[in-house]
């Protein structure tokens, strides 16, 4: 990186903005509305994180992922999670294969996980055992099958969807699994105008196919670029203060966290905040992450990392309420910088 000159860096930043614009335009051609969902999905994409999309059926979760996969020149794989899905169905298994010479050998048949963009549809319908099969792949970008470790090709994204209603026969994701998702994005209902636009597009002629606007290498370059965006110590301090304020036993915990949380966010939450903040800064044309960026990404980055206690669940408290209080009460300036 030291060899990169400032004008080259400027060119890379410019290329990032162009690609981002194209990607947005391509997604926007298929998906109506849901700007914040698209924005957050792209944030996670450039940060190299996995996304958990939550919303009732029919809101375009799967469509978003599929469109994204088509717009990016990445290997796409869709796994429909069902209760009878087994880990081997995801990871792959050794099969007895007969060679030309008639000899039979075990040969590994890779599962659908061996792709670059995975759509894990209705992930909470699979058993915890099957869900856990994704842990290693999501965190370490590798799979261990039949005692052999196999690398997954970069970039590797898991985009999972889950339905918040119709909970019968579902298995809530374990905390360890949840923590591995970079963002948890809640997909809401479209507005009236958006709904009309959806009707316009879907009840007429079939839409034009999605064009590929970003190849794999460009995406990797952009992912590398966003990690270089500088974040001041003050911004990192703010991220740390935010995370610590979610810990119910910490002195700086906000009241709602103190009362309704069983566990606060893990350090992965702070990493997600800063990394997403960097991406957002670059997407907005700034060359440095700011506290405002952290505030903007706090909801998707932290909401699945806060574990409510029984009292919180009984009171109907949501993680979003606690995060809102967090952003309101945690000071942006350290005590030394205040008057």
């Amino acid at each position, binding site marked *: 990186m030291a060899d990169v000159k400032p004008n080259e*860096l400027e060119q890379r930043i410019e290329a990032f903005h162009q690609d981002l614009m194209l990607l947005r335009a391509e997604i926007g051609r298929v998906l109506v509305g849901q700007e914040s969902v698209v924005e957050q999905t792209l944030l996670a994409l450039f940060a190299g994180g996995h996304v958990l999309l939550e919303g009732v059926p029919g809101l375009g979760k799967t469509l978003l992922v599929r469109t994204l996969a088509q717009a990016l020149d990445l290997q796409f794989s869709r796994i429909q999670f069902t209760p009878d899905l087994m880990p081997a169905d995801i990871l792959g298994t050794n099969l007895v294969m007969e060679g030309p010479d008639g000899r039979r050998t075990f040969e590994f048949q890779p599962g659908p996980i061996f792709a670059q963009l995975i759509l894990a549809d209705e992930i909470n319908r699979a058993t915890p055992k099957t869900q856990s099969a994704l842990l290693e792949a999501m965190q370490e970008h590798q799979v261990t099958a039949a005692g052999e470790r196999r690398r997954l090709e970069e970039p590797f994204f898991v985009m999972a969807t889950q339905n918040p209603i119709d909970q019968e026969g579902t298995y809530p994701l374990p905390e360890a699994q949840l923590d591995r998702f970079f963002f948890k994005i809640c997909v809401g209902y479209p507005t009236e105008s958006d709904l009309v636009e959806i009707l316009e597009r879907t009840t007429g002629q079939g839409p034009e196919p999605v064009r590929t606007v970003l190849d794999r290498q460009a995406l990797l370059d952009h992912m590398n670029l966003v990690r270089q*965006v500088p974040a*001041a*110590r003050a911004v990192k301090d703010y991220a740390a203060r935010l995370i610590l304020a979610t810990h119910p036993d910490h002195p700086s915990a906000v009241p709602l966290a103190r009362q309704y949380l069983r566990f606060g966010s893990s350090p992965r939450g702070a990493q997600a905040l800063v990394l997403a903040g960097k991406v957002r800064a670059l997407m907005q044309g700034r*060359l440095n992450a*700011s506290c*405002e960026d952290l505030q903007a990404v706090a909801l998707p980055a932290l909401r699945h990392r806060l574990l409510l206690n029984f009292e919180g669940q009984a009171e109907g408290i949501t993680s979003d309420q606690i995060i809102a209080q967090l952003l309101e009460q945690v000071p942006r*300036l350290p005590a030394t910088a205040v*008057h």
Partner: protein
Amino acid sequence: MHTDFQYIQQAIRKTRRRRRVFQLWQGLWHGFQVGAVVWVGVLIAYKLIPLQEPWPWAALAAVPLAAVAGMVLALLRRTSMADTAQWLDLQLGLKERLVTAWELAREKPGSPWTPLVIARAADALRQTRWQEVVRFLWPRQAYVTGTLLVVSLGLLWVPEYRSQGWRERQRQSRAQQEAGRELVAFARRELQTEALSPEVEAALREVETMGRQLLEHTQTPDQALQALAELARRLEERARSQADAPGGTRENATSGVDRSDASHPAQEPSAHARLASEADASRMVDRGAQARADAPSATALTAAVSPASAEPQAAGRSEPPLAMAGGTRGSSLQSPESPQAVTGEALLAVAQRLDAWAETLGAGQLTAAEQQRIASKLHSLLPLCASSSTARENLQAALRALQAGNCFSAAQCLSQAATACRATVATQKLWEAARRVAQAAACMGTGRSWMECTAVSRGGGPGGSGAGTQPGGKLFSQIQNAMPRPGGLTPEHVPAPWLGEAPLPVARSIGEAAPAAARVTVRAPLTASESVEPRAVNLERIPRAYRHTVRMYFDERQP
């Protein structure tokens, strides 16, 4: 890049300097606010609680001190350039551009991001009016402080709430200190006098010790009062025993002198002039005369209020007063400004002269003319020895012996007269000490000042049953008329030292005065009230000094 960074650096530095000055300004007002809160708090507390007097003043002094402390604390609170950059970012909405640029320039000057970030930050900074970020406005603390000071000014007009008990305790404490101071001063002054008898010296030491104890508050008020009463009684008994001792004098010195003054006002200067040839004696006598001339009112008052002393005056005789002749309860005492104090010195001078003449006469070989001259001088000393009837009698006997030509007998009489004079002086000092102690008890018991109690003691003296304080005495009548009491209730006897002009104990039944006919004794209403209500005597209305006495009185009169 360099220019951009310099611009950023300059902006941060200037802002930091201005913030520092503003912090001082704010610290000043913050300190003022804390001081004002303390001041108002203490003032409110002072208005409600009996705090010591210095507290509000100390709190007021704390206001400027707190302001200075606030400034010092603000001065100590230094902010770094990075903190200032971050603060400036927040104020100008620059989204951490400045602080990032500052950090990159310091920590990663070779990074390709550094010039870009600095250039963008400088551009963003140029589009703002960063010079106006730090404004010197009145801080919020200034308004709060102003309000508090106005409140405190208003509070100055609010009177303090103090309970009656607290006021009484304060008054008593002040009175105790004053009494102690006066007793110590009196004892030290008297101890400087030459030729004190050991008994008098011991008595004065006791008085000094008592005064010190009062000053240092080593005893509770009740204990101190009891100790004072005890000491007064002891001193009075010593004075009485001194007066009753063989060779001593039994009579009231005041009465004697006053009687002499009243009956022979014109003779006094001539009597003194006759002693002018004797240097020492004349000096003493002149001082005595001066003192008497200065204090005619005290002498007159003492004579006026003392029926016992008034009686011999009217009769023009030199017999001792009846009260003293009986050797009963205390002779009346004199105030220090009354002639007795000086007369004591004059009496000592007279005793000295009498001893000298006794020696001369005892040696014999005097001519008739010389005997005549001594006789005439002795005659002139008679008024001065009026305070001691024994001395007076011995002098008259010596005169008779001289007229008969019996020099030896005259010398013996003169020698006895000198001894009587000295004993009279000792008695006077003991009475004076007892009077002072009783005066101190009066101060403590009533909470009055020493001067007020002095006026009282001049008027009646603390002698209880002495001149004027017995039923029928003038002072007794005056006090009886002045004091509040149930109709017709007259104390028949107060069996303890009682201080004139202070209210006498009053027997009351709760809610209603005991009905009684005029001039009835205490016993009748007391018995009546006790039969109705055992706690009919309201102790709260009895001055502290008399509670013990009143209790004893009623205990003695249980039916």
